[in-house]
């Protein structure tokens, strides 16, 4: 073999540095490009351009009883008419109530069956957004009135803390499954001084498709002044509310909460000032919490709720004294979360309750709670923020078209304000649209009934989502 050292001609063209440099440049570009790509990330995708197919569904687990009357109120704050399709549910299956049109800036009230304890109503809204709430008025041997907003968020987990199984009081959980598949639920009852009750027959309890049932808490936790309940659907989606019926008259409803939170705002209006705050601690760890009363006066400690310790997996209730339109703000220290409720005594034997909210909003629709004779509506606006907030209010009467002028109410920071009664009396059964410049919470209350002020109910307002057109401008 020829072992001469050669180059160029014989060994082929010399290693031209051109391609070496090109290789280096391309490799460098590749590495830089990969790094840049990593930083840049994918292009943001455009937002959805919806076709105008707007719909929502509202689930109203109102319950009922023999001789009871149920009413579904649908308020349309927008500027286009919406259509509502109602189905009533009970243990015997669904039945169509009918289709109603809700005019712009107006409301529609529709009677629905409420003769069964587990009665509930599903409302499908087409063509726009509308707020939906229920009012049930006891009849027969019962008396009283209950009201709550319906929920548009069927979920798998619900908490409600308003049960009372003391003597002469009957508490129920109304569980509705308006969907086409069976749901399976586990029910746990939380008590003040006892471990949670998880009965075998309330574990993997089926709730058939398009059915609504009432679960009587009494036999499971007799003699408890406050019973919290957590309902978990291991399969399917449900809506849950509590229904309390007192022998001596009086009913109240509280829509369950789908999530626990560390801070709750519990507005109150139209009552006598004798309230009870209830908390359910779902976790095993105990909590410390306190309560603040917001009213037209400066904030103050609500009742004795300075710093209260409460063990895990339990419930607790404490009396609070409220003054006119006000709110109790419950704050849990640390990482604990709870669900909360507030019941308020009414002028008569009837009382009212609310589950409150953890999330203030800028626009609310407060649906009427006072139906029937001698109606006295009340609306409270609560400002949990650090700045005063002004709100514009507008009545949404049946037939639509808004009644009269709007008014503006200013709510001081960490305060609550009632809506002037003359404004509400313009149409006591009209819904109230609240559009604020800042975050508020709105709640409606009212008394009515054959006994004058005998029947009393509270219902939290329904927050208006973004995108609803036709609302008045905030002040």
């Amino acid at each position: 073999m020829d072992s001469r050292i050669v180059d160029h001609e014989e060994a082929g063209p010399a290693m031209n540095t051109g391609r070496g440099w090109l290789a280096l440049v391309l490799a460098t570009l590749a590495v830089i490009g990969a790094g840049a790509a990593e930083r840049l990330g994918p292009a943001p995708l455009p937002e959805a351009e919806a076709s105008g197919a707007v719909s929502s569904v509202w689930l109203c687990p109102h319950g009922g009883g023999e001789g009871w009357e149920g009413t579904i109120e649908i308020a349309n704050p927008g500027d286009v008419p919406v259509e509502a399709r109602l189905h009533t549910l009970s243990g015997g299956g669904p039945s169509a109530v009918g289709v109603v049109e809700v005019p712009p800036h107006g409301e529609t009230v529709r009677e629905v069956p409420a003769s069964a304890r587990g009665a509930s109503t599903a409302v499908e809204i087409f063509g726009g957004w509308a707020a939906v709430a229920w009012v049930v008025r006891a009849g027969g041997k019962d008396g009283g009135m209950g009201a709550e907003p319906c929920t548009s968020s069927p979920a798998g987990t619900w908490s409600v803390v308003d049960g009372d199984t003391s003597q002469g009081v009957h508490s129920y959980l109304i569980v509705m499954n308006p969907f086409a598949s069976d749901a399976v639920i586990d029910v746990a009852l939380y008590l003040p001084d006892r471990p949670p009750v998880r009965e075998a027959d309330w574990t993997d309890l089926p709730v058939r498709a398009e059915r609504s049932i009432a679960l009587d808490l009494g036999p499971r936790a007799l003699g408890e002044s406050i019973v919290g309940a957590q309902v978990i659907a291991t399969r399917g989606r449900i809506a849950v509310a509590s229904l309390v019926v007192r022998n001596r008259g009086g009913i109240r409803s509280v829509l369950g909460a789908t999530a626990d939170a560390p801070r709750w705002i519990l507005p109150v209006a139209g009552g006598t000032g004798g309230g009870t705050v209830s908390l359910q601690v779902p976790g095993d760890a105990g909590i410390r919490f306190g309560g603040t009363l917001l009213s037209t006066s400066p904030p103050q400690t609500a009742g004795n709720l300075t710093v209260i310790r409460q063990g895990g997996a339990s419930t607790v209730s404490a009396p609070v004294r409220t003054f006119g339109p006000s709110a109790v703000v419950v704050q849990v220290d640390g990482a604990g979360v709870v669900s909360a409720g507030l019941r308020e005594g009414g002028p008569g034997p009837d009382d009212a309750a609310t589950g409150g909210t953890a999330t203030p909003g800028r626009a609310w629709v407060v649906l009427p709670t006072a139906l029937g004779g001698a109606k006295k509506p009340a609306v409270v606006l609560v400002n949990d923020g650090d700045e005063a907030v002004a709100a514009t209010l507008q009545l949404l009467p049946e037939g639509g078209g808004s009644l009269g002028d709007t008014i503006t109410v200013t709510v001081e920071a960490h305060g609550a304000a009632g809506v002037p009664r003359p404004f509400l009396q313009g149409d006591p059964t009209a819904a109230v649209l609240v559009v604020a410049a800042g975050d508020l919470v709105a709640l409606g209350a009212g008394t009515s009934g054959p006994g004058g002020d005998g029947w009393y109910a509270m219902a939290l307002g329904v927050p208006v989502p973004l995108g609803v057109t036709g609302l008045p401008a905030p002040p």
Partner: protein
Amino acid sequence: MLAILVVRSTEPALRECLHSLASQTYGALGVLAIDDATSDGAHELLVRALGEDRVIRHETPLGYARSFAAATALPVAAAADHVLLLHGDVVLDPDAVSCLVEATELAGVERVGVVGAKVVDLDHHRALRDVGRSVDRFGHGMSPLQIGEIDQGQFDRVLEVLAVDGCSMLIAREVWQTVGLYDERLGADDVDLCWRARVAGWHVLMTPRARVRHGLRHADTDGEGPRSPRYEQDRVALASVLKNYGWVTLLWVLPLDLLLIIVRLLFLALGRHFEEAYELVAAVWWNMGHLGTTVRLRRIAQRGRGVPDHALRHFTASAGLHIPRWFQTAERIIEEQRELDTQEADAPASQRLRHRTASFVSVHPVLVGSFLAVIVIAFAVRSLLGPSVLVGGAIPAFPATPNGFFQQLVSGFRATGLGGSLSASPALAVLGGISYATLGATAWAQKAIVIAGPAVATVLCYRAVVRRTGRPGASVVAAAAYGLSALMLWAVSEGRLAQLFLMSVMPPLVERIDLAFARGELNDGRWRFTVGLAVTIAVGVAFVPGAVLAVGLVAMLGALLGPSRRRGITLVAGATVGAAILVFPFVPTIAAGGGHGLWSGIGQLDAWKLMRLSLGEAPGGWTPALFFPVAGVLGLALARGKRRAQAGRAGVTCLIALALAWLSVAGYLPEWASNAPAYAVLAATCASFLIGDGLSSAMGGMERASFGFRQVGGVLLAAVLALGLSLQALAAMVGNWSIGADRIPAAWTVVDAAARGSYNVVWLAGTDGQPLPVPGGDPSGVVPAGDASVAYGLTGRSGMLALDMGRPLTGSGTTALQQALVDVLSGTTVHGGALLAGLGVRFVVFDEASVPAAALSAFASQVDLELVPAAGLTIWRNVAALPPAGVVAADDEASAIVASDNPDVIQRWEPVPSAALSADDAGWTGSAEGGNLAIVATEFDDAWELSSSTSRPQPAFGWGTSFADVGSDVAIRYGDQLSRTIEMWLLAIVWIAASWITRKPVRR
């Protein structure tokens, strides 16, 4: 003994031939020469050598067969015990005749009828030309010799054979008088003559002691025009079979022969060897035309039968496997190694082994590569073998029969997805053809593509690189890198059949386009080159329409960087137009939706993974896969000489392709330009070309060049390749493929098994380039909904179908689907089920981990979608669903909703009982079961008809098709099939024309 010498022209060897005859040691030898109408002085030479009396002249040429026949008709021939048939270009050793005669009296062998000599080349005395022949079962003559085999005494023993070379053949008188001489129709066919002698019970021997030298063989066509060797072989073989086999043998040989002829015709046609196919047909045709004579000759041959066929079986070889050749090749290789041993006898054992290995690999790179590939493939695909159908990954489901492909190809309407009239891809014809080739078992075809696809792609890559570099060794390594790239293993793992086709097409495609822009003449000529390129592009586009993006990129860079820009642009533009013509019914399909057919949502957002050409989770997608691009960079750095320019272009193309692949999946390119897999395949092709260029430049003469980067880079490149290929091969062999027998998620299997009837499924996934849940296949599009954006696809219950290969989901139905999903994901509606009802969608399926939380929330809020309990997948059942084709009892309100195109109205649709219609090739049929409104989830087309009714089709839900007032029996038919039928005939003609233009020339 009479020697009959037939002279057809003045052979250079004639004088020597005559001299050798004169020099024979055998005494009793008479010579009779036949001058077969020579005109160049041969006659004078013969007369001078033999005398006027021993030379017979033909005025017109008769050929060897007739000349010998004429000679044996003379009394002098009948008087001789043996005749020696000699060609005029044969030179005999002095004792050749003696040895031939001696062999007739060989002890222990009775009835020796024919004796042949050992024939060597006239000019190269050591080159063997004939030592006796056998035939395969179908009459094709077979020689044990390799081309150019050297005479080393390996055949130096008297051999009993089926036939000997007729250039010097000794025949006993009894033989030619009983079985005759040559079948003059076949020319001087030695095999046929000897076979007949064998059938009559005579022995045929080849004696190596009689050596003759023979010049180039003459064609002996007896008057017919020049035909290809294939024609002659097949014509003679079939005729010989018909004459010489007994009836019993013929009963099975003949059908099998005809079957093989059909298979061969198929392969020849597929390989565009049309002229050879024609020659084969002509050979069969000739035999059919001469069947009468053949039967007559057969009677004669069979009448004198002395031995049964099975007695001759050891003279016949297997038709398919020529095992001896393999052994002979192995023998040659061993011989080479022996020579090396001899040369390095004194070297240490380790050095000998090293040299021997290096020598072997460098001399036989393809053999070594093939051997290793077989081992890797055998290990890698072991889990894919077996009777079960492959599922999982992104492998499309095949129809039950091959007909399914062709029915959909020629169908005027789309039977899949949401209907429409867009044509299916011509790729279905290929898939159908492959399915037929696997005996009609489409599941086998599916497996065959998965298993053979990578091998074919690797081979085509090898061929492209070797054309580019001229170095088989470097090309084998480059192709191996391509075949073991992360991209290839991903395609196999996911069962991406279209991708495998694209990976097969891309190397020749890029190589040809590069050639168009390169300097130098095109071997094929411009016209043939252009059509050939058009065919290649068309095949790629038929399977992956996005291939055209890769073509465009290569052409663009060629136009910018190539030396022959004008020519390149002209050729590629012409080829692109040609390709469009070759898939013309499919062009509107690709262009629909603004070129949506070019789009692919598959890709890799992680740029570092993309750099190693890993587009998804698969064996071989790991970090070592980086060897491929690294080797490509090193190859680019090493490229020199004439390879510098082409390597530079390949390097730039590779980088840009990678960048475009990432930009595609990241959503920065317009939809029509987004196709990460196509760009990635282009990048892989360029990387393999770079490796080929680099290795070719580095190999050879390295040790003589002054030390520098070439040595360092070469060693580095070799090390990277060795390590990378080894690890990738290991990954392939032990990898767990996404496809297999049982790869459908159990959740979907259970739900699907419980569901009755046909239905559509919407599959969702994230927008990160990963596929839909199995068996949803690849996304058909993206629903833009901000944080809730998802990729989607729609299929029937079987999942992604091979019938939709290359065909995008576009049209008004898809627009409706997309809008419904937008409405759901935007959260404006909670009646998504109603919006999806008209689309025949019964289930919405996704993997919760891959879909944005906002999308999950949006679906959870739908009141008419019910979550089905299923572990591993999130499956929503549409409670408002309609069957893809069915009849409902619709009141005025329901009819108004069906007639509306307003989603706000459509969302009010409530579930109603329906009677499903069954799909067939022509549409749908079934019973109305009391319903009055037929609704079909296929794009509205006025050509749809309701049989036995005057009812006209109406749009349903703004895009579908409905018929009001249907009767009890419903048959919905498509009325515009003719235009598609015409299109398909034209398409067939276009392909035939293209195939004819690019046909492979026959060897003559």
